[in-house]
Structure formats: structure tokens, C-alpha cells
């Protein structure tokens, strides 16, 4: 009897979650009258605006990942190695982006870096792109930090570092050849999460007025009929793909690096 209720609960949750998705999928296939077709998808993929905004967001996601890794990995490494007492502070700071609404952050940016400020980043497209990159890095910080922190907890950081140093390695070499390869799996899972976040982000891109995928999604939602459903399905697939990749990478690493 207990079993039954457990399954019933799961069933209700599944219906609640999947039914709208199924509806959306079904709708996205109905562009051609009277039969199912992929016309909506073809229309989306053929839209130059889609191509431009999606390309822009993919590039931004890639840059955000590189930027985030370059900031987070050395920082977490250093805090774990030399300033372990700062770890609670780090935890707190990296949680802030989850607590502070993006709209507040972006207004802060605009106030600080507008054209009449000491660092007029919003004055040029490139400067605004950089500002957007920083915003994305902040948004993904909680995930990136936790992924890297867990990765570094799994290795004997201090001894590996000292072993490398005694073999002549400087800090850069230690980070690049010893630490990074050993937390690569963790970094990758942080990277996929970052990718998913950046692809779907709306507030930053819209308020900084950059041609990203998020604003395009919203625009398409207001101006087209079937394409938004197709876009939503594609975005879901992309996000799930990222999550599957995280799983795959984690699983893969278990095969190559079993504990003794």
C-alpha cells in the first residue's frame, strides 16, 4: 500500500512536469496544417537572427567558462592551501549571486560603468560585452565554485603541490600540470552548468542591450506562433544534453581513476 502511494506521487509529479513539455512538443510539430512536420524547426534554424544570437551566446558561454575557470581554480586552490580559514567567507560570497537578483546586479553595473563614470565600459560594444561576461561569470560562480571545490577536496592537494614543487615546478606549472588535470572532471561539470545558464540568460543581456539568445527567445515568443515552442524544446534538449554530458564525464572518470 505504501508502495502504491509512492508510485502515485511519482506519477503525479511526472505528469505535472512532462505534460506541458509534451504539449509544447506536439504544438511545435503542428505548423503545417493537418499533419506533423518539422517546419517550425526549419524556420527557426533558417532564421539569420536565431543564428546570430545563438552564435553570440555560445561564444559568450565559452568565454565565461574560460574566464570563470581562470578565476575560480587558482582562487580555490590558494584558499584551500594557504588560507583555509577563509573558506566559510568564500562559501558565503559565492552564494551571494543566488540571493541578489540579477536585475540588481545589472543596475549596479550600469550605474558604476556608465558613459559618465570613471570606467565607461557601456560606452562601446566591446566594453559592454566584457561587462556581460563579468555578469555571466558572477551568475555561474556558485556552481563553478562548488564544482571546483568538490574536485579539489577529492585530491591530496597539499602533498601533490609539494611533490611538484620539490621537482622544480613553479606555481603556474603546479596549477596547469598538476591541479587542473586532476580536477578536470569537476571543472567540466561546472562548465556545462555555466553553458546552460549563459544560453538561457535574459536579464543581463536585455538590460545591457546585447544580441544574445535570451532576448531573442523572448522576442520570438511575442512575434511568432509555432517557432517559440520549437525553440523551447530545443533549449530544453540543449540543457539536458549538458546534464547528460556531466553525468557521462563523471562516469568516465570513475573508470580511469579508481581509488586504490
Amino acid at each position, binding site marked *: 500500500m505504501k508502495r502504491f502511494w509512492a508510485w502515485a506521487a511519482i506519477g503525479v509529479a511526472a505528469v505535472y512536469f512532462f505534460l506541458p513539455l509534451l504539449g509544447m512538443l506536439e504544438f511545435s510539430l503542428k505548423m503545417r496544417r493537418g499533419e506533423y512536420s518539422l517546419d517550425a524547426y526549419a524556420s527557426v534554424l533558417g532564421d539569420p537572427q536565431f543564428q546570430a544570437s545563438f552564435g553570440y551566446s555560445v561564444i559568450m558561454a565559452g568565454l565565461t567558462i574560460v574566464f570563470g575557470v581562470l578565476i575560480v581554480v587558482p582562487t580555490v586552490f590558494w584558499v584551500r592551501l594557504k588560507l583555509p580559514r577563509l573558506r566559510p567567507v568564500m562559501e558565503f560570497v559565492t552564494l551571494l549571486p543566488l540571493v541578489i537578483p540579477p536585475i540588481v546586479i545589472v543596475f549596479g553595473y550600469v550605474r558604476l560603468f556608465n558613459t559618465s563614470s570613471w570606467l565607461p565600459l557601456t560606452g562601446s560594444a566591446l566594453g559592454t560585452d566584457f561587462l556581460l561576461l563579468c555578469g555571466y561569470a558572477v551568475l555561474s560562480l556558485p556552481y563553478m565554485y562548488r564544482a571546483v571545490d568538490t574536485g579539489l577536496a577529492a585530491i591530496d592537494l597539499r602533498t601533490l603541490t*609539494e611533490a611538484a*614543487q*620539490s*621537482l622544480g*615546478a613553479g606555481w603556474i606549472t603546479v596549477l596547469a600540470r*598538476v591541479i587542473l*588535470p586532476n580536477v*578536470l572532471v569537476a571543472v567540466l561539470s561546472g562548465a556545462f552548468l555555466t553553458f546552460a545558464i549563459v544560453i538561457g540568460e535574459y536579464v543581463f543581456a536585455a538590460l545591457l542591450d546585447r544580441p544574445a539568445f535570451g532576448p531573442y527567445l523572448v522576442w520570438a515568443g511575442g512575434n511568432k506562433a509555432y517557432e517559440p515552442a520549437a525553440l523551447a524544446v530545443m533549449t530544453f534538449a540543449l540543457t539536458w544534453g549538458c546534464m547528460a554530458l556531466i553525468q557521462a564525464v563523471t562516469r568516465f572518470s570513475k573508470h580511469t*581513476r579508481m581509488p*586504490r
Partner: protein
Amino acid sequence: MAYLDLSALEKSYGANHVVKSFDLGIEQGEFVSLLGPSGCGKTTVLRMVAGFETPSAGAIRIGGQEVTHLRPNQRNIGMVFQAYALFPNLTVAQNVGFGLKIAGLPSREIALRVADMLELIGLPEMGSRYPFQLSGGQQQRVALARALAPRPRVLLLDEPLSALDAKIRVSLRAEIRDIQRKLGITTIFVTHDQEEALSMSDRVVVMNGGRAEQVGAPFEVYNQPKTRFVANFVGTLNALEAIVTDPGAGKVTIQGQPLRLPQAVQAQAGAVLTLALRPEAVHLHGDGDISLPARIAELQFMGSVIRVNAEHAMGVIKLDLFNKPDTPPPAVGEDIALRFWAKDLIALD
């Protein structure tokens, strides 16, 4: 000046004074052990030599060059850790070649040197394996090869054997010593296992509370301990109370039996003096300056040696007898006489 010279080293963590006026000179090619109980500062001394800790005072010189403030990666010192610390993402060969690659050697030369090192540690076929595919003993040998590959000036080992099981520990002891002799590399070996220190080293440094209590060859440290701590920590000791009768002449009595110690005694007549005696200096048969009546309380047959606890009027004495197949050992409860020579008694400060 010795090849590796530690002079007046001090190390404090806040108010915690961990290493105190530590002096040690090690000749080129010498194998020296730091021996002492947990927390006595062995690792701290080693880490200062490696450059992972900066001494609060004092100087470290290698081959006449002061290295006290050089960074670890500029010292050219090899280090082996208790936890192996192999790079898990690299193969055995890549691990061994790590230091050579950083030194910028051409890859052909690296391959040759790596092959040599793997030969030296007896694992020539294992180059393409990953660390997790090796046993603990094999991993530690790879760690040794990795530390030695860049031809360091000094090799440091911090309890490299204590994570291994007993049998491998003993065989690896001999292997490490063998490799060390072959390469003639100046070595400091940290351990809290006296057997390890005594059996491997040219000299042993017995440490206590951050100080070097005694430095000497294993034979010397064992047979002529300078302090009570050294006598107690290195090997087993029996304590005997003696009453001083003539301090200048070294005359004392043990349970009423007079005897003369080899040296004068720093105590007044009538004072009680504690003398120490090694288990192997006590016999049941033959002659001795002293003969104490006793009864066998416990007996352990260990193979070549028989370990005996004998109760006498003022306590228990432990002694070791050699197993002789034609002489059966005494039985528990048997009355015996403990005999020993005055020259074997160690007067402790």
C-alpha cells in the same frame, strides 16, 4: 663544513616552539635518520630543508651555498612522502619524468633516464601503468624514482614506509638503502620506528621535544645512550636502583651487592641512582659481577630469541636469551639467577 649543514635552526608556530637550536652536519653520500616520538619536530626539520617551511632562525647550507630562503622549486632536493603523492593523472613513466620535463630536458633523454630509473627500482615493465594500478610498495618505489630522476643534491624521505604492511616495509628498507648507496646520494630519513632507523642509517639523530638529544652511529646510540630519553626510546631498558657508596670511585651497591661502575658517579654517597641495563646484557648461565636471585614470570618464544620477564626482589627485568636447540629454555615459575657485568650498566643523567 659538512655538505648539508643545518645550524641553529629554530621554528615556532606562534607560541608553539617546535624546533629548538637544531644543529646537524651531514656528509656527502651519508644516510642520516631523524628518530623520535610523534610531534617531536622531525617532519618540521625535513620541511625546512625542503623549503616548505621557513625557519624562524638559523641557516641551511648545501655544498656551501646558503639555501635558507630559496623557494622549494629552486633547491634541487628530492622528496618522498608517506602518502606516495604520485600524480594520479600521469602514467608511471610520466611521473618519473615530471621533474626532467620541467627542467627542460629533450624528450629522448627523458625517456632514457626514466627507463634507467625504472630499472633501478625493479619495475622496468610498469612505465605505462597508472598509479592506481600499482600496489602501495610499487607506488612508493615509483615515488622514489621520481624524486631521484632529476639527480637532486639531497634526498628527503618522510616516513616513506609507514603506510605499507610489515613484510614489504622490511624488504623496501633494504632496497632504499641499496639504491641510496648505489647513487651515493645524501639522504635524510624520518621515522618513528627505531628498528628502521638503526638498521638503515649511517647515523641516527634521536629527537625529543624539538631538540636533537643525541647524534651518532646506530651502535653508539644504542649502546651508549647519552640521556635517559634516548636510552628509553631506542631499544628496551631495564631500570635498576643502586645506592651510591663512593661516588668518586664509581662504587655502588645493588641489593646489597657491591660493584664498581666504569666511571665516576655524579651523586652523593647514600643517594639512590638509577642504572639501565639492556635485555641482551643479562644472562642466566656463566659469570657476572652481580647475581640477582629471581623467578621466571613470563616467557615468549620468538624463534631465534627467547624473551623472558624475570621477577626479582625490586621489580621485573626483561632479558633476551638466544635459542640453543640443545638447551631447553627455563620454565615459567623456575627459580634462576640473573647475572650481568658492571660494564654493561648505563648510568643515566
